[in-house]
């Protein structure tokens, strides 16, 4: 369920695709690098689509920009910085590590640590109560009989 309008917008102003031979760089190594970068760059007029997927004409322009820079021998980092300067952080599908994005990038770590701490607490409480709960765990005769009934049910 997605991107219906994009598809329509794309149809309205078609500009070929990332793999279009007319757009490709002659050097296959450079071309492969450019394609890698495409996947992390947002097609600005599209909803949530990389310029690698998009057929919109603006995506084609952006691909041209990236390919030119790759051809000039600039590094991935430089190209990304260039794009951000020109279009803002919005252009990157993977937000950079920065203070503003700290929440985003810290979420997995925080959630995992929180979960780990909770589990430790759970296990510690358990082992503490296990010591004085040893007797409670032994079944009485009546309980034993009930257990047999239950097991038969299974």
């Amino acid at each position, binding site marked *: *369920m*997605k*991107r*219906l*309008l*994009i*598809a*329509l917008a794309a*149809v309205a102003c*078609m500009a*070929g*695709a990332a*793999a*279009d*031979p*007319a757009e490709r760089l002659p050097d296959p190594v450079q071309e492969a690098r450019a394609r890698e970068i495409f*996947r*992390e760059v*947002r097609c600005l007029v599209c*909803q*949530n*689509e*990389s310029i690698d*997927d998009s057929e919109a004409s603006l995506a084609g322009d952006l691909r041209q920009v990236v390919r030119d820079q790759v051809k000039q021998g600039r590094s991935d980092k430089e190209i990304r910085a260039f794009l951000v300067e020109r279009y*803002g*952080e*919005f*252009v*990157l*599908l*993977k*937000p950079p590590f920065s203070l*503003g*994005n700290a*929440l*985003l*990038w810290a*979420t*997995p770590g925080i*959630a*995992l640590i929180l*979960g*780990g701490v*909770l*589990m430790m607490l*759970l*296990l510690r409480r*358990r*082992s503490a*109560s*296990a010591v004085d*709960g040893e007797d409670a*765990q032994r079944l009485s005769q009546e309980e034993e009989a*009930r257990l047999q*009934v*239950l097991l038969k*049910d*299974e």
Partner: protein
Amino acid sequence: MITEFGAYALVLALILSALQLILSAVGGARRSALLAGAGRGAALGAFLCTALTFLALIHAFVMSDFSVANVAANSHTAKPMLYKVAGAWGSHEGSMLLWCLVLTGYGAAVASFGEALPPRLRAYAVATQGALGVLFLAYTVFASNPMARLYDVPVEGASLNPLLQDPALAFHPPFLYCGYVGFSVVFSFAMAALIEGRVDAAWARWVRPWTLAAWSFLTVGITLGAFWAYYELGWGGWWFWDPVENASFMPWLIGSALLHSAVVLEKRGALPGWTVFLGLAAFTFSMLGAFLVRSGVLTSVHAFAVDPTRGVLLLTIMGIAAGAGFAMFALRAPSLNSGGLFAPVSRESAIVLNNIILSTATAVVLVGTLFPLIREATDGEAVSVGAPFFNMTFVPLMVLAMAVLPAGPLLAWKRGDARLVVRRLWLALAVAVILGLVAFAVVSPRSALASAGLVVGFWLIGGAVLELAERVKAFRAPWAEVRRRATGLPRGAWGTTLAHAGLGVFVLGASFETTWRVEAAQALSVGGQLKLGAYELTLTDVGTAEGGNYIAERGIVTITKAGAPVCEAKPERRFYPTGKQTTSEVAICPKVLDDLYVVLGERRAGDNGQPAWLVRAFVNPWVRLIFLGPLIMAIGGLVSLSDRRLRFGVARKVEKAA
């Protein structure tokens, strides 16, 4: 006339839901069987009335009654019958009605099939379901009425978006909603248990079948959506981490966690608070999804007309329902006492770990989905969070979960023996690693990451198979004994094996397809050739074709491999005159596991003055597994559901014996 009747039935459904709430709640509080019974009757009535409205809406669509605003906006006389019917749930109003239909349907199911439940728990669950019914039916009646008439009746309708005119998508929403809204029952049971202040093993046993049903439906629904994206959008991708996809994925993740923690509660009496919390959270995420999809707060494009005012209403409904749920939880959770002690190495611990990882994954998807809003609200900066972010965070979490998954079912409850598990699983690990190394050596280009993905996939499948072999004592006991054990094995065990193996199958497909997809593109004139891996593609002809409500340019692409014919692909570019929209119809030549995927681009001027078309083609290796895996998982869910131990009567016997 039928439309008015439908509109009337909808209002009646709202009133009956209110009665369901009041009668059941009072019946539960006063322990009155009469009132509770009346409440159940109201639940059945609410469902029947909503069903009548739904039928009336379908009738209006089938008859192309454009005096109904919803039909005029979403249908057309020339539309094929299947899509006229499916159009009934293709719009904002219609989909909310479907939501209400499923909601009241589940309510009626609890009312009719819950005889074995303790009367008070059942009454409170039916009451909560009624309260949810009141909220969503009121929204449908007052803010999103699908039966509203137009004064100025158009001669022809505006038609449904052609991208949605597709069989997979026609059936996608019903499955999705049966899943989404199925969690409402879990929510209601959680509320009922909290009101009673008792969450125990028996409760978990009652809740599990509903969770399993909802989860299985949701699995199928999400898979259908991914499959639709795969063959309809023409990008060759199947999952884009789009906000709307994420909205359906979060309840699934929480539902998966809940399925597991409910087992712990049922077998060992541990984790009652956490399980109830997940029960409340699953439906809260369903409601969040309904809000995100319809409010337009996120930049995702969706078939539903986006409407901020209604978005606020949906947010309010979600706030009321979830707020009440979690307030109740905060009130009662401290008094829930947890039984069942367990050691750090035990099946309980493994499932707790599973829950931690799945919850973390949900948090990642949630924050990733909402982060653009958060940044916008805090410092006004527009940012994008797309597939590269999720691939970098979500995937490692899942790998972690899957690395420990096969050990879980082999560990004993309470106190497991890690060495024993290692002794039982080394074979699966060895086979998986060897197969991964083989892939690394043989498949080109070499990719360590994808090979590692294959190791994980084979590890999951091998682990599931070994666990089953262990249970039936395969290779260690005489054949008769193995057979006796296999037939005596509870269905739940088969379900677990299927679901875990299905996940492995999915991982195999996803790793293989993502890395080793072959892509080629070329502007071809008629007679032109394109090389795609080992295949040769020839554009033999381009003609026109006519469908019911579209005209198409249809290419005929002959595919050969080393001169031998493989298949003939007929990709199309369809033009729908009603909406002046063009869509591309991908042609897929299915092999056993792989797909040859051909897309016809737009016409352009070729080299020699002849017209040419940009033909793009992919070999998507093992792509079948991506859709087969989740299907196996869903089947696993249904097999578990058929386990006799999950039937209500058994739970009652347990209750009596206790």
